[in-house]
Structure formats: structure tokens, C-alpha cells
């Protein structure tokens, strides 16, 4: 046996110990504008596709900085405010939106922003939806889109087949940002790789796949959204570098050692240490369908109403939050988070009720066997729950281990299955043949509008399964024609999905970012994404 052979495995095991000091030893190229006021952010993952309209809409880290949207949302009041559109009119049926564009706006390639390019953006998105190349969030926002036309050079009109009461808010989400005419001609692969030209305060300078992205400031930027941004003109930072650092201990260590100015996705266990080291913690509840579990309508357990209801009642969410997220985080109170427009508090329906769960299972004929696990007609009550390894957006392994303990007490033996992102994509290709009972995930959007798309059978995770009641509730939200009807439909859909366990919330997702004392003016915007336009770096 050669010494080399013996050494390699040692390296593997001791990686853990090395990461502690790796923070100090692993600086990739000196920060972009090192010395000239450039800011470095350590993020937990490299965005697989840089165009969030195509994929990964919930994981936008850089897109916000280089693209602008038609509308914006006031972080204090939640009100929709002008951004690229300076004003707009909506018809009484909420099917026609006329946007009057701001004058003097240019893309970073020099071409002007006009009504035609905005109309072409929406036409292109509709085309991408038909080709199944768009993110589900785009699909949800534009599911009844009919046409877009330029009325005059600075006026654009969008027409929908159904009332779209949430559209103005959706228009402030990054996946509906406006791209230049040249970008629209690119292939989806080119757009994913970062060939994007927008009107935002920063532009791409250098992209090193899976490693880092450097943005530089646009000096002629002069159209920030009033009420959202704190100043006019160009951004303060000359450049921003995003470094992908998957290991959370390295993000934390790199921040305290001064290698990074901002570190993203900080584990709750490191908060005290960072505060002691003088760093500021910025956090915000992410507006979304909260991380949770979705039943497989094709599996015997996932399609069993009693099982879903018992799982819903048998999970102690307060214990999950209290154990794994002892501060900042809150226990979920609905299937959407409290910052999502249309949210209603269903906390009492989500209370821990093990006795009620047992009763439901007893009545449905699930009887405990010799090993304490319930069974019915020879089927063991042992649901397979999948999660994606290393993914913050769905349930984590630790959350599922707690769920496993909690459900074990009422006679449900949970089997946890780890999936790689590729496994998960393969699983979702045809869920009727996939071997799982519950999958885990979340969905990001600021407006409850997207819930309809998530629970209609056209969604890949439902794959045309016939669930008429659920479909009707989702349709009601989709077709609601007045704000009152929409609020009622949104509440009804939340209530129904909770009662029948079509979504089983586990935690409320909170974005937690640590910021060095040298940084000022940093915020998380209403989408819980980095807002760097007003940020300054001292020294």
C-alpha cells in the first residue's frame, strides 16, 4: 500500500476541519475593484441560469442589479410604484394594462427603451412559455396573456384573456424584467450564460461559470425608482463581485476576516458569533409558497386524503422552528409567507394536533402493526419524502429528520430520500412513474396570483391528476374579476390546501445576510433579494 493511497481518504474526511481555515486561504482573484471601492458578496450558490425568466426565478442574485422592471414595490407600504413605466391605466375588467414608459431610458448597449421593445419582451415570453423554456413563475404570471402592442413610441398595451389583478405586482418581479431587442434574439442557452442586456444600474463585466460574477457600474444610469431607491444617478459602488461559496462556514469566516463585505444565507447557529464580531445581520421573510411538502397525486399514500390530513396535523412546526431556527425565523401560518400579498393567518389550522391525527388515521382504517407502524390492506404507512441535497429553498435534511420523529409518534414511518438536483428534475419529468409520496420545495412570488398556477393540474408536480375540487379552487383564484372576489378566492385556496394537505408547510423562509460594518445603505428588497444600488463601502 502506497502512502499516497492512504493519504487521499484522509483528505476527504478532514475537509471539514480544513474549511475552518480555508476562509483565510481561499481568496479567488483579488476582489474586482479591490482598493477602488468594489464590493464582494459571498453567495451560497452560482445561479445555474442567469436569466431568471428562463429558470431559477427564486434564486435571483445578480439579475436584480442589471435589469429593471416596469413597476416596483415600495418596501414600507407594499404599494406598487413606477419604475420603467412612469404611469399606467388598467381597464375595469383587469384585462388590459396600458403602460406609459419613462423617457430617456437606454439599454446598456445604447439602444433606447421604447414601447416596441417592451411589447416584444412579452411576446417573446409567451413564445418561450409555449416552448416550455420559461420558469414556472413566468407561466403563472402570464397564463392568460393574449397580446402586447405598441400604441405609440412610449405607450404599450398588454391584453389578457382573464382578469389579472396581480399583474402590476408581478410586473415588479425580476422574471418580468425588460431586456434589449438584441437579447431577445439570443437563444435560451445564451441568455442563461449571461448574454443579457438591460437598463439596470450595473452591467456584467466578467462571468466565470460556477465561480464568480463581476458587475460594473453604469455611469449614465439615471432612472431609479422613486420611493424605493434612496438617490438618483449612478450607483455608488464602482463594481460588485459575487463569489459562489457553498460552504457556510467559509462564508462566515470570510466575512469576519474581511475577505467578503457581505455574506449571504447565514445559518442561524452562526448569528451570535457574527454579532459578537461586530457584523450587522439583515433579514427578511421571503414572499413565497413556504418551504414544505407536496403530495404525489399518483402515489397511494399521497392521494389518500386521510393520510395527507394526518401528516398536516402530526407535524409540530413550532418545534421545527424552535429547534433549528431559534431566532429571526417564524412558524409558518399559512401555505404562503406573511409577506406575500393575499396571505391570511391560518395558524390555528396548522397547530400541532397528534391526537386529531391519530383519530383520523384510526377512522380511515390505518391500524398500528407490531412495529408500531400503521398499515391498511397490506400497505405500510411509510411515506417516502424526497429533498434536494444542499438546497435552501425546499425542506432540509434536518427538518425532515424532525418530521420523521414527530410523525413516528403517530405511527407514520417516514423514509427520507436524498435527491441531487438532476435526480429531482428526472423525477418531475413524469411523476406518475416516480417513486415518492411527498416532494419538498417552495415557490417565490410577491403576489398570491401564482398559487393558482401551482395547484392547477397543468403544473408538472401534479401532471394532469384529476383533483376536481382543488382545480376548481385554483380556477376561482385565476378567474376572480374583482379585488374582493380575489381575496375570497385566495383565502379559500389557502384554507382548502391546508385542510386537505395539498401543501404541508414546514417553516417560513427568511433570508439572512451578514454585512460588514464598512458597508452602508444595503437592503433586502421586497423580493428578499440584494438591493445594492444605494450601497456604499467605506475605506
Amino acid at each position, binding site marked *: 500500500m502506497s502512502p499516497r493511497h*492512504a493519504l487521499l*481518504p484522509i483528505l*476527504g474526511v478532514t475537509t471539514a476541519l480544513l*474549511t475552518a481555515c480555508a476562509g483565510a486561504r481561499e481568496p479567488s482573484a483579488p476582489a474586482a475593484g479591490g482598493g477602488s471601492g468594489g464590493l464582494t458578496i459571498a453567495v451560497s450558490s452560482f445561479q445555474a441560469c442567469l436569466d431568471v425568466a428562463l429558470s431559477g426565478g427564486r434564486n435571483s442574485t445578480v439579475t436584480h442589479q442589471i435589469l429593471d422592471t416596469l413597476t416596483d414595490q415600495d418596501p414600507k407600504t407594499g404599494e406598487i410604484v413606477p419604475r420603467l413605466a412612469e404611469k399606467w391605466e388598467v381597464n375595469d375588467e383587469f384585462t388590459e394594462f396600458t403602460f406609459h414608459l419613462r423617457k430617456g431610458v437606454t439599454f446598456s448597449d445604447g439602444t433606447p427603451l421604447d414601447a416596441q421593445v417592451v411589447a416584444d419582451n412579452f411576446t417573446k415570453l409567451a413564445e418561450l412559455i409555449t416552448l416550455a423554456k420559461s420558469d414556472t413563475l413566468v407561466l403563472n404570471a402570464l397564463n392568460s396573456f393574449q397580446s402586447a402592442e405598441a400604441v405609440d413610441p412610449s405607450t404599450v398595451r398588454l391584453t389578457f384573456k382573464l382578469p389579472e389583478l396581480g399583474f402590476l405586482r408581478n410586473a415588479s418581479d425580476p422574471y418580468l424584467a425588460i431586456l434589449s431587442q438584441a437579447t431577445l434574439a439570443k437563444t435560451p442557452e445564451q441568455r442563461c450564460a449571461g448574454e443579457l442586456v438591460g437598463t439596470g444600474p450595473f452591467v456584467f463585466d466578467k462571468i466565470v461559470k460556477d465561480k464568480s460574477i463581476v458587475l460594473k457600474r453604469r455611469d449614465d444610469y439615471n432612472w431609479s425608482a422613486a420611493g424605493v431607491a434612496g438617490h438618483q444617478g449612478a450607483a455608488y459602488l464602482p463594481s460588485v463581485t459575487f463569489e459562489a461559496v457553498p460552504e457556510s462556514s467559509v462564508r462566515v469566516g470570510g466575512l469576519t476576516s474581511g475577505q467578503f463585505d457581505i455574506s449571504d444565507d447565514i445559518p442561524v447557529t452562526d448569528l*451570535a*458569533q457574527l454579532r459578537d464580531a461586530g457584523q450587522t445581520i439583515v433579514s427578511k421573510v421571503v414572499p413565497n409558497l413556504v418551504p414544505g411538502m407536496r403530495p404525489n397525486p399518483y402515489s397511494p399514500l399521497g392521494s389518500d386524503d386521510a393520510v395527507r390530513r394526518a401528516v398536516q396535523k402530526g407535524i409540530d412546526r413550532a418545534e421545527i422552528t424552535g429547534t*433549528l431556527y431559534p431566532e429571526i425565523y417564524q412558524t409558518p401560518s399559512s401555505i404562503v409567507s406573511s409577506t406575500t400579498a393575499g396571505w391570511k393567518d391560518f395558524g390555528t389550522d396548522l397547530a400541532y394536533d397528534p391526537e386529531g391525527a391519530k383519530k383520523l388515521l384510526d377512522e380511515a382504517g390505518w391500524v398500528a402493526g407490531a412495529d408500531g407502524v400503521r398499515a391498511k390492506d397490506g400497505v405500510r404507512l411509510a411515506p417516502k419524502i424526497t429533498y434536494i441535497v444542499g438546497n435552501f429553498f425546499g425542506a432540509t435534511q434536518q427538518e*425532515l429528520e*424532525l418530521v420523521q*420523529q414527530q410523525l413516528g409518534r403517530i405511527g407514520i414511518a417516514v423514509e427520507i430520500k436524498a435527491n441531487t438536483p438532476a435526480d429531482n428534475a428526472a423525477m418531475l419529468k413524469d411523476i406518475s412513474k416516480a417513486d415518492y409520496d411527498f416532494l419538498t420545495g417552495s415557490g417565490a412570488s410577491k403576489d398570491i396570483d401564482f398559487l393558482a398556477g401551482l395547484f392547477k393540474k397543468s403544473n408538472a408536480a401534479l401532471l394532469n391528476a384529476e383533483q376536481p375540487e382543488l382545480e376548481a379552487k385554483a380556477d376561482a383564484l385565476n378567474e376572480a374579476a374583482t379585488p374582493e372576489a380575489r381575496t375570497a378566492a385566495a383565502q379559500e385556496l389557502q384554507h382548502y390546501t391546508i385542510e386537505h394537505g395539498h401543501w404541508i408547510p414546514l417553516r417560513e423562509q427568511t433570508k439572512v445576510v451578514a454585512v460588514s460594518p464598512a458597508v452602508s445603505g444595503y437592503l433586502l428588497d421586497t423580493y428578499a433579494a440584494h438591493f445594492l444600488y444605494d450601497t456604499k463601502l467605506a475605506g
Partner: protein
Amino acid sequence: MRRPGLWAAVVFLAVVLAWAVVPEWFAPHDPLAGVPKEKLLPPSAAHWFGTDQLGRDLFSRVVHGASLSLSATALAVAVGFVAGTALGLLSGYAGGRLDEIVMRCVDVMLSIPGLLLSLAVVTVLGFGTVNVAISVGIAAVAGFARVMRSDVLRAGTQVFVEAAGALGVGRVRILFRHVLPHAIGSVLVLAALEFGTAILAVSSLSFLGFGAAPPAPEWGSLVSEGRNHLANAWWLTTLPGAVIVATMLAANRVSRALEDR
């Protein structure tokens, strides 16, 4: 008792083996069910290795993990031993073209770092303790084959083997009756040596997430789960890591002693 180091190693290995066979005799708590309120407690008299982020007793998890980790290691060594020995025996005794082909394949396998080869194999096989064991075993095949072949070549030149051939004893009978017993000694020692390496390789793969499904404790995955708590709960990585290192050192010490004899 002139070699206290050796005896300490033997005793330690015996204890770890006992953990694997009858964990409930040693583990004071349930390895899977924790008390969430008692999470991240440092080592104390009640919890020798402290508790993890879900309030489970880490010592109990290490004790119960011994069974999975050691059986995976044993399986890995067995796979490498059986497949490698068979290949070496065949190659050494048949000679000629076959020998050439097998040995060039072995050269290729030896040129790839063991852990890398295991990683490639386990990626194809998928998650699970058995798959991890098989992949580590496959990476060890080449070493066994090479040692076995050279011993077979050496044994094949002995006078009694030639005599058996001259007396008209069949090739297969000569191989198993006369060559194998004289060649097996050094591969057995190698197997003992491989045991230490295999513990580390199995733990490495389980550290990387290829091992058993959660919440089953495996030594490597215990270290991995503690990674995010390095700054505030050192015991989660350090103590399971120390057990892995100690087991590997003890296994190596014992196999060196076997080699000397």
C-alpha cells in the same frame, strides 16, 4: 505485554467491534430520537460526546454508526479481496496473453487515485451503504490482484508444484491444492492493512453524502452534519472524526503486527 501500543489497539478494535454487534449495550440513548430542547449541548457526564442540532446523543449515534461503517468496510475489503485474489490467481497461473491483458488493466486501475475511482463508481451505482462499500472494494481490487499474481508466480516455480505437474495432476487441482495455499498469506496481510484504509474511504464517501439515508448514523455523515457547526459546536465534527482516526490507526497497528510475523 512488551508492546503496549499493540495491545491498546487490539482492545480498542475489540470495543469498536462490540459497538457494531451489540450497540444497545453501550449506547446510553436512542440514536434516532432526540430531545430537541437539549440540542447542541457540549460533552458532559450525561452526554459523553455532547448532543447534535436535533438534541440526539452523539455518543449513541457514533456507537450505532459503528455497525453501518464497519460492515461497509468489511464488505469493501471482502469485495476487493475476493475479486482481486481471483484475478491475480488466474492471471499469474494462466500467464501469457491473459496475464498481459489483466495486468495492463490493473496498471490502469492503479494509476487512478483510489478515492477518485470509488467516487466514479459510486456515482454510477447511486446512494447507499452497500454501494459505497462496493465502490471502495472495486478500487482495492487492483492492489490485491497485483500481490496475488506475484505470489502465484513465486509459488508456481516451487519444485513440488513442478513435481505435481509431472505426476499428471490436473491444472485446476494444482492451482487450488498447491499454489493457492502458498500464495494466500501475503494477501491476507494486505486485507488486514486495507481494512484501515477502507474505513477512511467509506467514511469519506459517506461524508460526501453517498452513504445511508438519513437519519441512519454513519461515521462519515456524522462528521459532515457537524460541519456547519464548527464555530459553535466543535464536538460534532471532532469526536466522530477522532473515532474514525483512532479506528484506522488501531487497524493499521494490528495489521503491521501481523505483517511482521
